[in-house]
């Protein structure tokens, strides 16, 4: 294997190991320096990635299992940015983890490494290994706050359900191998196109099981049960990473598997017709997420349900089965990154140690910290898809992709609209609490009113997120071009 091809991944993994080693000799009161170093290291890796740019032709390694093309580069940049933001966010949070110092940063790096591999996966082996790397790291990260029962509970739940999902997925891969005799995406595609596939039923069953495994990653109905519990229980920075990194990894794999390996196209070979299945899934996901979030008072749980709904919206882009839809997924995820990280940053700063993230902690926020109030307001507005923020462009593109005049899913559009209106209701609830909330109205307790002082790293994260949401919302042209270029490799119809 060509080592220069995976230099970024090696770099990130090495960074993790180095941080882990350095942690041994770093006194506890200076552990936050490690976070700074990790963020710096990741920034350098990101800079290298940007400098390297997108190759004209996709580069693959000799076996063809690893590919470096526009799509991979787009997602790698997304993951690295998420990694940097989450590392900075963890720095402000590390004293609440108690047990851990360097391990958190190292584990973040390892999960990130898995995501980078996922962005380039072009065979089922690479797919499985990268997913396992991400998921296993997250089992540990989720239960890192070992003094909190909720965190442990979340870790165990995630472990059991995640292991089951992996088992199902690996079984699906085995079935696919059994009928296609290869694990590489392009070879499978060739086999399908040439009609060489024997035992077609077996292949279809395998594909179905594989899709189930990926649906678990993006928390789509009916594989969403873990999301709210894990989101609520995990330490907040981990939740943020889970919400964007893990989900985006699921989407890039879904895109590649569907379009590169299975060659799903509206007028392609009619072996698999996942459009109906996926649209059903998208509709159910949107409805489930939106309806469950309506009466939710725990902020992290609310965002957990909301993120289920978001996965449903992003699925709309895949249901469309065209290039616009795929590009829309990319744009949506990029906008989602800034909004969700901003929201979780504010939550992580506000939550008192070991307490529930009830909506009432937001009361008086506009007096306590105008900056956080503004950021959180814009973040939820962006998640709700209100112009002029990044989330609006993403949702707009997704809707546009799915409202083709020829499309047969008018009911899907109606469900999506219903979801958007419901989402306005619960997101508006957050904004209401920020500006005119009265705290815990069921007790005599007055809401906190002391001003909050932000650490530098937190200010940086908030500023980057604010900038990202506004710039992508007001001037999305460069992002659109990048996304459109990135999905070229999927060879989809326009």
């Amino acid at each position, binding site marked *: 294997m060509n080592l220069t091809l995976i230099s970024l991944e090696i770099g990130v993994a090495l960074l993790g190991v180095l941080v882990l080693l350095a942690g041994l000799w770093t006194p506890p009161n200076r552990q936050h320096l490690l976070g700074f170093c990790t963020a710096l290291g990741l920034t350098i890796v990101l800079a290298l990635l940007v400098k390297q740019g997108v190759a004209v032709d996709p580069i693959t390694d000799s076996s063809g299992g690893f590919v470096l093309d526009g799509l991979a580069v787009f997602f790698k940049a997304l993951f690295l940015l998420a990694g940097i933001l989450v590392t900075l966010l963890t720095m402000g949070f590390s004293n609440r983890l108690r047990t851990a110092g360097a391990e958190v940063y190292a584990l973040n790096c390892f999960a990130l490494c898995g995501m980078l591999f996922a962005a380039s996966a072009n065979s089922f082996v690479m797919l499985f290994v990268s997913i396992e790397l991400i998921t296993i790291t997250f089992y540990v990260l989720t239960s890192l706050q070992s003094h909190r029962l909720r965190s442990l509970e979340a870790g165990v739940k995630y472990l059991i359900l995640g292991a089951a999902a992996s088992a199902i997925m690996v079984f699906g891969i085995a079935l696919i191998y059994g009928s296609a005799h290869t694990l590489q995406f392009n070879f499978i595609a060739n086999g399908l196109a040439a009609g060489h596939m024997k035992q077609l039923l077996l292949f279809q069953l395998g594909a179905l099981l594989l899709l189930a495994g990926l649906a678990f990653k993006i928390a789509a109905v009916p594989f969403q049960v873990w999301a709210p519990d894990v989101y609520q229980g995990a330490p907040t920075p981990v939740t943020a990473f889970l919400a964007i990194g893990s989900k985006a990894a699921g989407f890039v794999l879904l895109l590649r598997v569907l379009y590169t390996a299975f060659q799903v196209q509206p007028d392609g070979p009619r072996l698999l017709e996942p459009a109906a299945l996926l649209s059903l899934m998208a509709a159910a996901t949107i409805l489930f997420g939106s309806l469950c979030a309506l009466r939710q008072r725990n902020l992290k749980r609310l965002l957990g349900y909301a993120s289920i709904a978001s996965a449903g919206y992003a699925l709309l882009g895949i249901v469309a089965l065209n290039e616009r839809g795929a590009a829309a997924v990319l744009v949506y995820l990029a906008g989602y990154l800034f909004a969700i990280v901003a929201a979780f940053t504010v939550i992580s700063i506000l939550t008192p140690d070991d307490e529930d993230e009830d909506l009432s902690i937001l009361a008086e926020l506009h007096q306590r910290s105008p900056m956080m109030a503004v950021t959180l307001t814009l973040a939820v507005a962006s998640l709700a898809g209100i112009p002029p923020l990044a989330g609006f462009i993403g949702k707009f593109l997704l809707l546009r992709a799915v409202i083709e005049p020829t499309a047969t899913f008018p009911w899907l559009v109606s469900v999506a609209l219903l979801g958007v209106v419901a989402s306005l*209701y619960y997101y508006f609830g957050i904004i209401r609490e920020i500006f005119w909330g009265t705290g815990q109205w069921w007790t005599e307790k007055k809401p906190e009113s002391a001003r909050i002082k932000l650490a530098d790293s937190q200010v940086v994260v908030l500023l980057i997120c604010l900038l990202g949401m506004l710039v992508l919302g007001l001037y999305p*042209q460069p992002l659109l071009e990048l996304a459109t270029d990135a999905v070229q490799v999927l060879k989809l119809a326009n």
Partner: protein
Amino acid sequence: MALMLMAVPRENRAVFRWGAILATLGSLVLALFVFAKFEPNTDLTSINHGYAFVQTAEWIPALGISFHVGVDGVSVLLVLMAAIVAFAAACCASGIKAREKEFAILLLLMTGGILGAFMALDIFLMYFLHELALIPTFIMIGVWGRGENREFAAYKTTLYLSLGALLALVGLIMIYLHYETFNLPDIIHRIQADHGDLMTTGQQGLVFALLMFGLGILVGLWPFHTWAPLAYGAAPTATAMMHAGVIKKFGLFMLIRVALPILPDGAQQWLPVLAWLCLGNLLYCGLVAMRQKDLNGLISNSSVAHMGFVFLGIASMTFIGLTGSVMVMVAHGLLAALAFALSGHLHQQARTLDMDKLGGLLTVMPFWGTLLLMAVLAGCGLPGFANFAGEITVFFGAWKTIPLITGIAAWAALVIGAVYMLRAARQLLHGPRADDAPHTDDIPGWHKLPFIILLGALLLFGFAPKLLTNKIETASESLEHVVEMYKRK
């Protein structure tokens, strides 16, 4: 030029209250300038034919979206009206005592957004800027609103209006998918070309329904109007003035600007429905207004009822009817702003708007009382006010095509309107003052200015409706084309 008009309201935030007033004054001056200097492009070959002050800049070329603004005979009037109301609203915002800074920012955002939306020639930009103006409404109702109900009002308004906007967005996306561009003059140009590039009839029906009901919710089309009384009852004065006066007109504007020219077949299917629904506005909301005990409830219901005239004008699909619609939009914008400003002043003084508790106000507040009387008379459609000119034009236009509905509307709506308006005037202005009536002061010194401007504009356009019709005349070609397309079958 038009670009400057958009930029101005965003930048002045230094000294908040005065900044807001000055900024809106600036845009008013610019709007007057545009109004006076307005001279549409007469070059028939140009794509911007019929528009003036056109500005174009690339925005999101990947999606065929550009920053494209300009005014024609219809939008120039609405821009002027919006600028007048914005200035008046900024003057009336002095009642806001808490967080003035944020209020001023939101008010300017609203003004900038809606002025831009009226000028936008790109459908996406139009929608985008309208949303920008709409969102502050929700926040203002929630934060600075009054009454027990404000949270519920903010919620309900948000949900209703967002649903309306989303339905309209789906319709707009479908238009976009057919034409592959959001550029309005370009689309209309393509339709006017010999082989009109139209969507199929079925598609047009669907898109028109989406736009009609989506925008209808924004305007308060019966039976989707229930958010309006609640919202205006809870909104702070300046917000109610801006929303009822200006932002609500956007839905109608977009119907005339986008839906009618692009979807003639869809219009044929749905306008008869609209004609009957507008009776719902005129009669039902009028009757509801009659039973109101609260002045704000009365004004908001009557403002929803007045929208019926505009819908009637649109449904008539005659040039005269459309002209009347635009005139009513302008007149009603000024009137609604005036009425809400008056009730806002009363609320500030008396802390109540319950008409049973108030009475004989003409003796204590002569200036306010006179203004209210004028506003009431304008609301009844008395000659001399711009409303009369608009409503009578609508009736003239509509009589030709839908005489039955016009007849019902003319008889019933005007009588009902007169009943509730005059009842309000009697209860508030005349009669004995109750012993426990709260102390009220008249409008002091310079605060009279916005009221005078609004009333002055109403009277000016009432006595010289030519000022309005002359401008609309310049857009007659495009309006008449709309009518022709509609009658083609």
